């Protein structure tokens, strides 16, 4: 009773889409950040599913690298967000608008 690989891929695509929508629609920096993490983990799921499909270990190894990179991003990202919160008491990205693109 194995679940076909394609189900995992669909789940991964859905998670990735949810993450992307979150980044595009939410305004709280922390939620944006969580959405990005969701996208990265969706990618991890895709890697594992594809590794299973090809019977290839490389895909699973890549996941470890991605996890480490995501951890590094968390460290830097949270530091940046906390630093902003200390001076402005808000992490809403709409309030962070001194510079106008």
């Amino acid at each position, binding site marked *: 009773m194995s679940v076909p690989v394609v189900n995992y891929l669909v789940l991964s695509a859905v998670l990735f889409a949810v993450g992307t929508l979150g980044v595009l629609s939410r305004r709280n920096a922390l939620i944006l950040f969580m959405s990005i993490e969701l996208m990265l983990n969706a990618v991890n799921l895709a890697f594992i599913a594809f590794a299973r499909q090809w019977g290839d270990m490389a895909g699973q190894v890549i996941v470890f690298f991605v996890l480490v990179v995501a951890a590094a991003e968390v460290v830097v990202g949270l530091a*940046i967000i906390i630093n*902003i919160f200390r001076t402005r008491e808000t992490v809403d990205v709409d309030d962070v608008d*001194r510079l106008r693109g």
Partner: protein
Amino acid sequence: MEARDFLALTPLLIVTGTALFVLVLDLFLREERRGWLSGLSLLGVVAAFLANLSLPTFREPLVQGMIRFDALTQFLNAVFLLGCGLAVMLSADYARRQGMARGEYYCLVLLSTLGAMLMGASADLLMLFLGLETLSIPLYVLATFTRRNPASQEAGLKYFLLGAFSSALFLYGIALLYGATGTTKLDGVLQGLSSAMGTAPGLVLGGLGLLLVGLAFKAAAVPFHTWAPDVYEGAPTSVTAFMAVAAKAGAFAAFLRVLAISTPALAEGWALVVGWLAVLTMALGNVVAVVQLNLKRLLAYSSIAHAGYLLIAVAVGQTGALSEPASAGLLFYLLVYTLMTLGAFGVVIVAEGRGENLSLEDMKGLAWRYPWVGLAMALFMVSLAGLPPTAGFFAKFYVFRAAVEAGSWGVLLAIVGVIASVISVFYYLRVVYYLYLRPAPAPVAAAATEGEGEEEPGRPVYLSRLAAWGLGIAAVSVLFLGVYPTAALRWLVEIAAAAMSALP
């Protein structure tokens, strides 16, 4: 690991070692000895530069197929290290004035350079991603380095959120290509792509598309450029200078590596999509730059516009495999772009006292007070505009010529490029106009007749010896490559040919 793996890694190891050493050394240095840090970083960069150029090259991928050390890697490494070295030279005194001359600053600059070098050397999509992250994460920190300054905080946050978002897109692209071909090795992907196009075209197209979007974000190509002006303006100027060069050069190095994997079947679509990106980027970058009065923003839009010219080379460089003239043009453009952009930002760095944002008005009469700095700025502006006898002219000339040779779509791109360059002449020469044609702030006698007792003396320029050397090297190189470009170009064509022949 074999001996030759270590040989190929030597420049990378030197940069890493220097970065870590600088970080630790900072703890043991007294405040007044902090100057050593910049000197030491520079020493490491020079050592890596020399090691890089003296090492033999290898045709096949090394370190278990993760990186290549071929002529292309060698050239890209040289460009990155040149950019890093110049950035350190220009920023040493500025960092001291801003109170950010700590070990972390140099460590992060070096690590970011390491990331760019990894990208240029990568023979595997995973390596490309790791290089991209090693390049970007230090840049997020650097952008927010003056952490009490609200503008810098905001620059860091914006750069981080959009950068991490684009990295995720890039990574999903890699996952899809892995799913289509069963490997992440660039060679393997190239071989598997034609058959994968038959079985799973969605995965291939989606994967390549997401890779393209991820890299376009890093290169600040329209419509993925929105972060660039804000981040460039908010970040400390020395960081902006480094970021404008390192992130862009890294992205285009990755473009060159990824370019080599798409098959002839995809060439036409690739040329069309990237071509449109180039057109949009050139149009928006140049038109918006015209109305900018803030110097850093102007240079930010200028750097967006230059991404457009570089994208032309990427678009037409795809006729089955790397095409030599387009790739050689792209490499030459990258080298020249590094020199002239760092030079232009370098002048802004030395003209900036303590973190204020310079406008065009602040450049008024600068050339009369500091003739050499003014002359250098004028030279960089003329080069960015692409006028002879500077290197910028030949950089554009080679890219446009390669485009014209590539067929009717290429001709169209070249025409748009020329029109965009003509627009750009206006805003670049306006800077030169402010430098020279406006008289210096009125001398005391004239001011008295106008009834204003004290006219402020002109803005000072903080020209340390190291910064002067940096500006001098950039200016002389821009002039030399403009007067005598053939030698460099002949070398680059050989590199492009060698890189092409190394492909399966």
